[in-house]
């Protein structure tokens, strides 16, 4: 555990250097404080508006997490469906790719029309942007099971479902987790975009603070949004460590 904490130190150095440099640059007048607020002002905004910001943080967390869970379940289910035959894959996979290329910012107003203002729109937005990497990675993982192991399962009369749960899923786990890592970051982005258009949370705090010229508060909200993304990412890493440490090279 101590070793793990120590390994985080190198990542903190750039953060500290950047924070101190920006603070100095603003105080020296090299950067305009209405464009980039001094870190001390951001910290002050965090304290001053803490009730509002942390409430927004909780709301955004709930929406992002829910959207992420839905895309985990939905993405894996769709990947299993797509993997069932080459014909199904040829028929449906192009649409999954097409779905991915539609910009969320363009369809977000549609989501508001369908789901109304509020959490449902935000969750839908988080879901839409984060499902594709789960589908793509799970599908690749499921399809790249070693042929010899598939033969082994067939030899002893394993059913399709048994092979899926005892062979294909565990074998695909490293890839599934890679998909979830990407999806966790995207789910936070999707939730913020959803809140910009039709919801409450960090996204709407940013939007309102922007119109009030409160750059410090915008930064404080953005900082909290990235904390949320990091926390989700860390959660996936923890799951990855716990499930893969005994057998996969990536966690040894």
């Amino acid at each position, binding site marked *: 555990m101590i070793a793990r904490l120590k390994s985080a130190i190198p990542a903190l150095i750039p953060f500290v250097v950047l924070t101190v440099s920006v603070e100095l640059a603003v105080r020296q007048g090299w950067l305009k404080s209405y464009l980039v607020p001094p870190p001390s002002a951001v910290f002050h905004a965090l304290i001053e508006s803490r009730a509002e910001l942390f409430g927004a943080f909780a709301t955004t967390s709930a929406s992002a997490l829910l959207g992420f869970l839905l895309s985990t379940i939905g993405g894996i289910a769709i990947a299993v469906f797509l993997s069932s035959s080459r014909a199904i894959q040829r028929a449906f996979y192009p649409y999954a790719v097409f779905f991915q290329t539609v910009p969320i910012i363009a369809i977000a107003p549609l989501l508001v029309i369908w789901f109304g203002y509020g959490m449902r729109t935000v969750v839908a937005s988080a879901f839409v942007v984060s499902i594709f990497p789960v589908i793509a990675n799970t599908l690749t993982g499921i399809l790249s099971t070693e042929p010899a192991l598939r*033969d*082994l399962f067939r*030899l*002893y009369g394993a059913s399709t479902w048994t092979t899926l749960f005892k062979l294909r899923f565990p074998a695909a786990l490293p890839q599934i987790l890679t998909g979830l890592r990407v999806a966790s970051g995207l789910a936070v982005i999707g939730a913020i975009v959803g809140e910009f258009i039709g919801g409450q949370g960090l996204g709407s705090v940013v939007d309102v603070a922007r119109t009030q010229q409160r750059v410090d508060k915008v930064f404080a909200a953005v900082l909290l949004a990235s904390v949320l993304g990091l926390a989700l990412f860390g959660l996936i890493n923890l799951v990855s460590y716990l499930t893969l440490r*005994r*057998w996969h090279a990536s966690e040894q």
Partner: protein
Amino acid sequence: MRKVFPPVAVIEHFDLAVPSGEFLAILGPSGCGKSTLLRIIARLLAPDGGSVSIDPDADRFQTSFVFQDAHLLPWRAVLDNVALPLELMGVAQEERHGRARVALREVDLTEAEDRYPAQLSGGMRMRVSLARALVAAPRLLLLDEPFAALDEITRFRLDLRLRELWIERGMTVVFVTHSISEAVFLANRAVVLARRGGRIKLDHTLELPERNEDLRLDPRYGAEMKTLLAAMEEE
């Protein structure tokens, strides 16, 4: 029997009868269709013409297969890897663990049951793979160049052990290899395949005394090596 992977007929006019309890080695150059043949016997692949019959054909799970590499499930400890065939056949956990321990004892790996494949040497992994094949008590054991990737000494020990297991269990063994010395050492009968089409160039019964460390010094061993080598080289 016949098998075509368009545009090549990998196996054409192949016909062979293997009596129960025999140790048969199938020898041939790379790409001659040895592995395809083995997969057809295991019914993992359907022939395009002809058939494979196993007599009696009552038991579904009479055949076990050992691959070129160990092919263990890396997320499972050794014991659960060995017990896998029984698990797939629906045997209860307690019984399958018991039988897996017996199989592990047969390959001298009792101490490794809680370890993971990543923690084992190549030779140990292959022994786990062999135990996994034995746990289902097969009447027919198919091996596809199983020890090819191992060092000479490990390979020799495993060859000896395999031969002992064959005698103890009285099962039929079909062993595919491209090593003439391994075929002569292990088998009672050797079949040499042609480079193309799976034609049998030589079907030869090996008349050798007890297989042990001294066998390789025996002139009869050298004579058998020479016979098979001549058949391999002939076009």
